[in-house]
């Protein structure tokens, strides 16, 4: 099977977040970057497992500048056969989805894997947009996948239960926790990653229909107010008038 795994670079979960350009853009200065865990731990590993079971190739794809190469190499170290970087800043989900679809449309991939969301902007819309652009079936937030011949059976959590879906290849899948188990790259994998191809391709023109107007951090947490256990009226008053939760 010919499999494509889309990977994103995201800030490390411990990074201090700030903005620049009048709070219209994320400020990457001093931030450590990692591969988006949903892409790395679940999407990529499940694609590798599928390749190991039925044969084929796994390509990792990233939309981003050359500073993302270290994260792409990690994808190769974990086991992908080759990599593609679409050479452009990933300015929006629309832009990224369009670039992925334009690249993939004539390559004949049997499945396109990606994490259910990135841990920075958490939009969770790229996978569905790629499926729409490519006119492919889409299964979101898959937690388990079995493959029999040309058909995949997938499970996903829904409110109060589990949904079981069946879909024929090709399709787009967004991966949630439990779809696979994290693989740690070995030293051999890390050394081999240097020798695997990383092809850089230009982005195609795209006019962004959505513009970021402003980013803001959540308001700072206020101090804890201690209320005497005997003073229930004061507690109710504050919850109603100040916290506005009752």
């Amino acid at each position, binding site marked *: 099977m010919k499999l494509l795994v889309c990977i994103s670079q995201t800030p490390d979960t411990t990074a201090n977040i700030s903005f620049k350009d009048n709070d219209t853009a994320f400020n990457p200065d001093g931030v450590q970057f990692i591969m988006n865990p949903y892409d790395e731990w679940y999407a990529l590993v499940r694609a590798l497992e599928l390749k190991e079971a039925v044969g084929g190739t796994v390509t990792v794809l990233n939309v981003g500048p050359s500073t993302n190469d270290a994260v792409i190499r990690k994808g190769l170290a974990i086991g992908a056969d080759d990599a593609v970087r679409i050479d452009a800043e990933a300015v929006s989900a629309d832009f990224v989805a369009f670039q992925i679809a334009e690249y993939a449309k004539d390559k004949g991939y049997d499945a396109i894997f990606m994490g259910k969301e990135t841990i920075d902007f958490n939009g969770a819309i790229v996978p569905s947009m790629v499926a729409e652009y490519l006119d492919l079936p889409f299964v979101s937030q898959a937690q388990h996948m079995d493959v029999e011949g040309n058909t995949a059976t997938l499970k996903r959590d829904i409110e109060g239960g589990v949904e079981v879906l069946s879909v024929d290849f090709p399709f787009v899948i967004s991966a949630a926790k439990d779809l696979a188990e994290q693989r*740690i790259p070995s030293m051999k994998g*890390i050394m081999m*990653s*240097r020798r695997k191809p990383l092809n850089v391709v230009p982005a195609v023109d795209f006019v962004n229909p959505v513009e970021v107007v402003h980013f803001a951090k959540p308001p700072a947490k206020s101090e804890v107010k201690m209320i005497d256990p005997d003073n229930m009226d004061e507690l109710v008053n504050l919850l109603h008038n100040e916290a506005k939760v009752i």
Partner: protein
Amino acid sequence: MSQKAKEDRYQAHDYYNVDALLSDEHKMARDAVRDWVKKEVSPIIEDYANRHECPVYLMKGLGEIGAFGPSLPAKYGGGGMDETAYGIIMQELERGDSGIRSMASVQGSLVMYPIYRYGSEEQRMKYLPKLATGELIGCFGLTEPNHGSDPGSMETRVVDDGDAYILNGAKMWITNSPVADIAVVWARREDGRIIGVIVEKGMEGFSAPEIHGKWSLRASVTGELVFDNVRVPKENVLPEALGLKAPLSCLSKARYGIAWGALGAAMDCYDSALRYSQERIQFGKPIGQFQLTQKKLAEMITDITKAQLLVWRLGALADAGKASAAQISMAKRDVVDMALRIAREARQIHGGMGITGEYPIMRHMMNLESVVTYEGTHDIHLLITGMDITGFNAFK
């Protein structure tokens, strides 16, 4: 204390942006081993150390990530990496526990390295790939009950017996020996020269009893090697090793990894102490606000930063094949000494909690009491530097 305190919340500290001196491969290797330690070592290590038991099963995982002989060629199961990468791997393993790092140091530097450096091609192909995966466990026999710092006076002997040597003697303080499949053993020939032989488990007259009751490296298994007329085929002799220089060259490899490793233990102690100082409230404020705590922490990160630069430079020299035994000796001595001081200061910052297994401090501190002694004691390393700078040999 809550489960939260036991959780591995380690974050590396890099005050001088030493990361910028590392390649992408170095950083990827570092992150991979750090992830592995958090996943496989941190959750179990306190329990194993408490029970004085070695998690031998981790040898397989260490093999899978490539922690055994990472700088040996891929042909023999190594990773083909440079010496800096090897050092970084040791740093991250010892950040978890010195005992786990010792398992990897012995396997890579004291078993695989001598077979690679001094062995025949047949010996390399027979042992190295299986040692690299952890399928075989190895140990290294040099120290004896009566000869620690003075291995040149060893009493273990081999006598020529046609197509074999007859080996007699005993080795002491041997990491991994009770669980080892093979032992690289150094013994004196009838002509007085020292040779290396590969002794295999199951050879008649060979036993490896465990040393019990250690208060240090409790999650690593240590034992003796006893040879009672063991018949070792001559094909098990390392053909290129003749004289004490051969085992000493192996020790240099291992000491290099220890210098990096002890830094990892120091970083873990500092990280834990810094976090504790920010969370522990006394007199209505975090203890990190008190000047005496800040003095301790400031000195700790300064010492760590100096050690990071020292081992990085040593790594660059080793990568260029220019790290001398004396330079490695200096780094081993100084970084371990620094790590012990930091462990003790960190223990004080943790107050009473510092003596419990809820935090890694006491375990690291006890481990480092072995590390400061094995592979050349602190004092012996001072004499090595002394001899190197004055030209006078103070050993004799």
